[in-house]
């Protein structure tokens, strides 16, 4: 057992050397190594948001509203077809679960079903009585949702990019969620503000027959709706609601650019349409001079200026009671485009840069002190062998750093705790071996025999003990989120590397000592 073949010894030393090389960039200023190839050393450990500061947000896309909209459109299509065949029908409010159409003439029911079936592919029909219930099948539904999420990801990415931070990460999670991580962000409220809005902007004509108050009293004229005024609008002027035409005259999809600017010393938002949008905007403004044009953002009227003259260039400005910040945000949102569906922030965790730095420092102090305690205690307890175990322990730490750098695993605050815990537990394998050697010596074996037997019989115990802890770490990794994953990662890596360093490295050192000294007595 104590005899090492040359190549085996070389292998152990090679692993250690690689560990040192790959861990080294973490102790040098960044950029000291060239980092072209991913397998070459040069990468530093990835610090988690809790250590480097930044914001983590978990968003949920309201996929129900995507489906609802699609079912509304589907119901419209079917009703148009039914009307062509002169089948009388009545729609019911579309939900996320499907479109319902009631057929009023029972004799046409079968024909109506045929029409509904052929309206769009990938739909299923059901229904009872005289109602037809149309739903998308699972494949089509998944495709719809996937597309909405993909679009949302794209819009979120454009919005976050506008903040100008480095390396934001935007990823889909599960069916309808998006995780946004923005390192080094000072003010999470800004991120909240730009992610929490759908930013669907449309232009509608203000109804010129009635005011909203009249309509509330006497009933809505056909094709109109009442929308509230936004905070940053004419609320100040005492108008709380607008009666506007349902029809969208120009949609925000036609916007190509938007910038914050000033008009009469007040912050405003300028916008520019594409060719089609510009033409339509010119047409509408030519024909409706004198009417109000409502600019509707996410179901609220942000401004409803009177059309004084045709606006032909495809450019315009939105005036409202904006602060400079609001004008900046609004133009950012318009530039980045609307989300296909509303989003909610389910979870937010933000850490300021100061706290992250403090945590790193506290973690470093704790790790160094823990290391010093354990190192000292091992030497006191096991003398020379304790020293060997300490060298292995240092090597173990270097290996943990190296593996984390290579895998680009994320180090979090609980992760640092995991490393400190590993320091305490990594020596366990050596404690097991050394205690065993002590016992064997007490049983009257020679030095070399005791060492040999100590390593051999401690082996299965070390494996059993480490595998059980590894199981707990792996479960933590698969269930945990963010920081906890970081803890599981360092714990798991630490357990694996400690088996190498505590078993092979110490054995190599002890074998070397035995070979040099040929000891006949071992004080342990």
């Amino acid at each position, binding site marked *: 057992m104590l005899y090492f073949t040359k190549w085996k010894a070389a292998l152990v030393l090679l692993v250690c050397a690689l560990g040192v090389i790959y861990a080294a960039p973490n102790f040098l200023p960044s950029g000291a190594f060239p980092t072209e190839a991913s397998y070459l050393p040069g990468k530093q450990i990835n610090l988690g948001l809790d250590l480097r500061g930044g914001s983590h947000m978990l968003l949920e896309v309201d996929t129900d509203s995507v489906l609802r909209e699609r079912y509304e459109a589907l119901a419209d299509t079917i009703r148009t077809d039914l009307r062509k065949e002169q089948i009388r029908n009545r729609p019911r409010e579309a939900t996320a679960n499907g479109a319902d159409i009631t057929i009023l003439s029972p004799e046409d029911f079968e024909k109506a079903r045929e029409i509904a079936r052929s309206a769009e592919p990938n739909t299923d029909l059901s229904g009872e009585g005289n109602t037809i219930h149309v739903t998308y099948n699972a494949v089509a539904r998944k495709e719809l949702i996937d597309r909405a999420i993909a679009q949302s990801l794209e819009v979120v990415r454009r919005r976050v990019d506008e903040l100008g931070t480095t390396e934001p990460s935007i990823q889909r999670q599960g069916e309808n969620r998006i995780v946004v991580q923005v390192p080094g962000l000072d003010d999470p409220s800004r991120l909240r503000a730009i992610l929490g809005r759908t930013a669907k902007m449309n232009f509608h004509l203000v109804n010129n027959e009635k005011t909203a108050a009249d309509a509330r009293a006497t009933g809505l004229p056909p094709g109109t709706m009442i929308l509230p005024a936004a905070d940053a609008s004419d609320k100040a002027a005492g108008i709380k609601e607008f009666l506007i035409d349902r029809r969208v005259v120009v949609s925000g999809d036609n916007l190509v650019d938007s910038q914050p600017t000033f008009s009469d010393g007040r912050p405003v938002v300028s916008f520019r349409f594409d060719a089609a949008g510009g033409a339509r905007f010119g047409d509408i403004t030519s024909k409706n001079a004198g009417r109000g044009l409502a600019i509707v953002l996410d179901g609220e009227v942000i401004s409803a200026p009177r059309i004084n003259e045709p606006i032909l260039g495809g450019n315009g400005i939105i005036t409202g009671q904006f602060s400079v910040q609001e004008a900046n945000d609004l133009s950012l949102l318009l530039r980045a485009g609307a989300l296909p569906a509303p989003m909610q922030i389910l979870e937010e965790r933000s850490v300021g840069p100061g706290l992250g730095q403090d945590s790193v420092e506290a973690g470093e102090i704790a790790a160094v002190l823990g290391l010093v305690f354990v190192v000292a205690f091992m030497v006191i*307890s096991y003398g020379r062998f304790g020293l060997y175990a300490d060298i292995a322990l240092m090597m173990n730490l270097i290996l943990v750093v190296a593996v984390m750098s290579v895998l680009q695993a994320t180090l979090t605050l609980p992760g640092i705790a995991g490393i400190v815990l590993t320091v305490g537990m990594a020596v366990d394998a050596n*404690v097991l071996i050394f205690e065993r050697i002590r016992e064997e010596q007490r049983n009257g074996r020679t030095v070399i025999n005791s060492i040999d037997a100590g390593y051999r019989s401690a082996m299965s115990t070390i494996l059993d003990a480490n595998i059980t802890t590894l199981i707990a770490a792996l479960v933590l990794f698969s269930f945990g989120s963010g920081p906890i994953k970081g803890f599981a990662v360092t714990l798991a890596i630490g357990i694996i590397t400690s088996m190498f360093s505590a078993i092979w490295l110490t054995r190599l050192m002890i074998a070397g000592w035995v070979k040099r000294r040929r000891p006949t007595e071992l004080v342990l």
Partner: protein
Amino acid sequence: MKPLHLIPDDVNVPFLKFRKLFYIVSLVMVLASAALFFTKGLNFGIDFRGGILVEIKTDGPADISGLRDNLGSLGLGDVSIQEFGAPDDVLIQLQRQDGDEKAQMAALATVTDALGENVTIRRSELVGPKVGSELKEAGFYSVVISLLLIMVYIWFRFEWQFAVASVVALLHDVVITVGFFVITGVQFDLATLAAVLTVAGYSINDTVVVFDRIREYLRKFRKMEIPDLLDLSINSTLSRTTMTSFTTLLALIALFTFGGEAIRGFTLALIFGIVIGTYSSICVASPLLIVLRLKRKIPEAEEGQEVKA
């Protein structure tokens, strides 16, 4: 210099003699923990309850009662305000707001507005009701699944008595650690849950080392009475058990003292868990093997050989 031996070489503590006492102590602790868990309950952090947490740094010592008046008047329900590690560091926690995720967002904005410009926001966390209940569920499953996997592994490596005894000891440690949280009122969040799972891994690790030795001695000392054999096994591994617990505790104490306020609860759980885990592998797991009627399994042929020899 002779190296330090924490435990004398000729240690021979009759642990098994006191097993009734250990059973009673453990049973009382487990029952008390369970009772407290169901009556007083854990002080769940916002990870599981949902809610808002803001950590701020003020210029100079914080005016806690002023903050309490200021934030308490916002109509956001219970607001907990406490010093956090330093006089100018304050932790503000809000209970989950009625309504959906939007209501939480609005409350966070209200709080940050009310705090004004004079404080630095070091950290803000918001967990909506949806995520809170999901985290609770995932946490529960992670505990159950890791216990099951560990049990399967032990079953695979040892006889069934060992598997049952180690899992009982493990549950014992987990339940009492949870009880510790109920009694101290230390907040139970994702990090402390991770600590509990680590305690589970550590506790089983300790137990396995003793069990390995029992298995070995079962083969080696064929004539020895089981209780004596268990005592011998525990005593032979006692030095290792205490050494490892001691080094781990040394590292954890460094972490507890210098690792910062944010992971103090987490470290405390680990420290407590390791103490209780060490106790259980010595005083609970091994004696349980007697209750479970551990027997020597000696193949007929081998026995024959022994007779011949």
